[in-house]
């Protein structure tokens, strides 16, 4: 009886372990669910560095997380901005869309102004404008000096 129970537990644990390993497997060309070179991107920080373009220094503004999904069809992206200072900051951002070959897949987006209160986080969400846009960069610039 005990032996049977042991076998069941072993099978269950092996199956469970298998599922857990499968969940961690990334599709080729993806890292942390986002398009990117998984050989070079070993952490979320690497992913953010690979996808972020700061147009000059932007004091007190950090990108703290970045998430991607293609569950509903086109590539959807969430970018979490954080204002680490006490003062309200105004920045502008836009996405640059790239195709499979790394060529530009869409015209320049408009710069979108964003106000972030002090010590708060704000999530920006966007969707790829076309199916050819399979990769991206998020470009951020300062709209004013700290108040």
């Amino acid at each position: 009886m005990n032996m049977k129970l042991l076998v069941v537990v072993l099978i269950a644990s092996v199956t469970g372990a298998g599922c857990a390993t499968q969940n961690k497997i990334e599709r080729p060309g993806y890292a942390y669910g986002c398009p990117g070179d998984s050989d070079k991107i070993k952490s979320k920080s690497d992913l953010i560095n690979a996808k972020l373009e700061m147009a000059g220094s932007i004091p007190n503004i950090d990108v703290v997380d970045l998430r991607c999904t293609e569950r509903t069809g086109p590539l959807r992206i969430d970018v979490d901005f954080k204002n680490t200072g006490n003062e309200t900051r105004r920045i502008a951002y836009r996405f640059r869309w790239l195709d499979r070959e790394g060529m530009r897949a869409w015209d320049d987006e408009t710069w979108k102004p964003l106000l972030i209160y002090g010590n708060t986080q704000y999530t920006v969400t966007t969707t790829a404008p076309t199916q050819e846009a399979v990769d991206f960069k998020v470009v951020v610039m300062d709209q004013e000096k700290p108040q």
Partner: protein
Amino acid sequence: MKPSPRMRLAGAALLCAAAILSGCAEKTRYGDARGVETVTNQFGSTDLQMIAESMTRSMLNTPLVTSGERPIMTVQEVKNKTSEYIDTRSITDSIRTELQKSGRVRFAVDAAAMDQQVEELKRQQSDYYDAKKSVPVGKMVGAAYRLEGNITSIVKEAKDVKDVFYKFNLQMWNVQTGLLEWGDEKEIRKTTSR
């Protein structure tokens, strides 16, 4: 030879005149067409571009569009309910262009362009055209969905502050069933202080 006091005076006057003229001269430069424009708090290019982008991306996420069926739409009026003049046709044109470029939606001729469409069809039926190479009439495709919306604003003004709040609303209606298939809003707040 030493310059006379009169020559010195004339030279100084010339220098002053040049400095004043160069100060008054207008400068024209190309700017970033996609840059954040905050010249006044009236409806501007950044507002138009942000609204068009926001509405388009939202619509591209609807099951109707992601299904790959390439639904046929038509653009109806966006009513301007603000107190200022806004070319709402320009907003819907931008939305239509972005959706068309995405390749996931098709557009049927809208009411505004119908006269030109009919005129061209009629022209091709005339004796001037080879009947075999003219497009036949009665083959136009009707839209299954129509887009309509409105833009409203709330303006508040105090001694040193003017606050303008815009709300753009767009809806996609099923022409056959009359069901609302999709709708979204974009809100913009602009504050000017002295």
